[in-house]
């Protein structure tokens, strides 16, 4: 993605992006925890135009049995896009991209989870994209983390996520779909805000070492903003009408 020519003005001279945001502004994020009755934990996220539901089951028995680990619990993650999530119908079968994102998100959540208390079990994370805009893996990761906390699975820290990128030679926060398609770089980052550790890091595009540093710092600032919203979602569900504090 070397920055394709397009008729969209990604960044005007006043520093306003194609959807009206400034360079350091994320899209509107709302998260609600505990939206599904049948799952052990769940969350719904709207990250700009992304709409994603996360459901968590477990810890529970592993099927098929050979996947079970006698030393520790395991985590499985399924990322799936609904046929109606994009403008052209998406075939519902898992594509190469979805399998890859599932794997990447699994590995981004794993360091946060304390699964060695539950040997021979599995934690299943299901992520259903109802509507996709750019940066759905970050949105999915943020939702998954809230759903895991809702399910009461022990975690070292929450995982928040946000992307940063480069359009028109400028580092921007939270890449949307247009910017992803026509921009010069896209860097999704998953971050544990209290432990200050990065759990997901991908980069699509070309950056100079200085840009790279700035891009990562920008993404982490975005992650911290998302973290505040995740925190609020959990507090709203569990301590909604509490009095002390």
């Amino acid at each position, binding site marked *: 993605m070397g920055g394709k020519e397009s008729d969209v003005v990604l960044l005007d001279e006043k520093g306003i992006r194609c959807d009206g945001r400034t360079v350091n502004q994320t899209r509107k994020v709302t998260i609600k925890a505990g939206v599904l009755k049948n799952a052990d*934990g769940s969350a719904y996220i709207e990250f700009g135009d992304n709409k994603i539901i996360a459901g968590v089951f477990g810890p529970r028995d592993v099927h098929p049995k050979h996947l079970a680990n006698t030393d520790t619990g395991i985590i499985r993650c399924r990322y799936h896009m609904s046929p109606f999530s994009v403008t052209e119908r998406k075939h519902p079968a898992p594509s190469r991209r979805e399998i890859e994102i599932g794997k990447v998100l699994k590995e981004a959540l794993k360091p946060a989870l304390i699964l060695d208390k539950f040997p021979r079990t599995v934690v299943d994370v299901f992520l259903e994209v109802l509507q996709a805009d750019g940066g759905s893996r970050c949105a999915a990761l943020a939702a998954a983390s809230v759903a895991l906390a809702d*399910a009461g699975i022990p975690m070292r820290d929450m995982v928040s996520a946000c992307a940063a990128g480069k359009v028109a030679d400028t580092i921007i926060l939270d890449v949307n779909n247009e910017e992803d398609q026509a921009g010069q770089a896209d860097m999704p980052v998953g971050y544990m805000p209290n432990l200050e550790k990065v759990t997901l890091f991908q980069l699509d595009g070309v950056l100079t070492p200085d840009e790279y540093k700035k891009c990562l710092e920008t993404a982490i600032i975005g992650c911290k903003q998302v973290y505040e919203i995740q925190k609020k979602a959990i507090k709203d569900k569990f*301590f909604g009408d509490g009095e002390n504090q």
Partner: protein
Amino acid sequence: MVNNKRKYVIPGDVITTGPYRPEQNVILVDNKIIATTVGVSEIYDDSVKVIPLTGMYIPKNNDLVIGKITSHSSLSWEVDINSCYPGMLPASDIFGRNFQPSTDELNSKLKKGDLIAARIANFDRSRDPLITIADRELGKIDSGTLIQISPSKVPRLIGKQGSMIQLIEMATNATITIGQNGRVVVSCDNPDALLKALKAIRMIDERAHMANLTDRVKEMLESKSG
């Protein structure tokens, strides 16, 4: 810093720093004590713990649980104890020492779907929990209403030295069996009192994180009876 201040926490929150012993649901990461689950943190003189508000039941030795028979082999029953592991109830527990797999029919004593009050006899991380019903208050449950609450709220339902549950039992004249796995059996002759007891239990399940819950429950129990 000796204060027993309760605080709402979510995973990753730093509860305190300093030489404290991490207890339930907290971890120690370079001198910081971090909560691992959503709950209420409590700081004692030398230790810190978090009382969880969500999560699955993890078997512990000697816990009273209410289980449902799901199947049996020739030697044991498999019991759903609302946990990530199934409970194992050996046939010799019921048939005694001279249990003969060839002649004794397990189905004649406990069938699939039967409810039992049982105790966790032995559980470690390498095997499924072994349960027993060999005690006076244990065994098959024949009557009563089963309700399911979140296992993390069981301590709240029991209250300090059983204060909460005694309150409900006194007010409604019901007999309540609480399994640590979140299953509760209520039996009561008076249908109105039964409904009231169920309502009180549900109320505790929903508002477990609130302070002075006992007073609220008391108020609720008394308001209708008056």
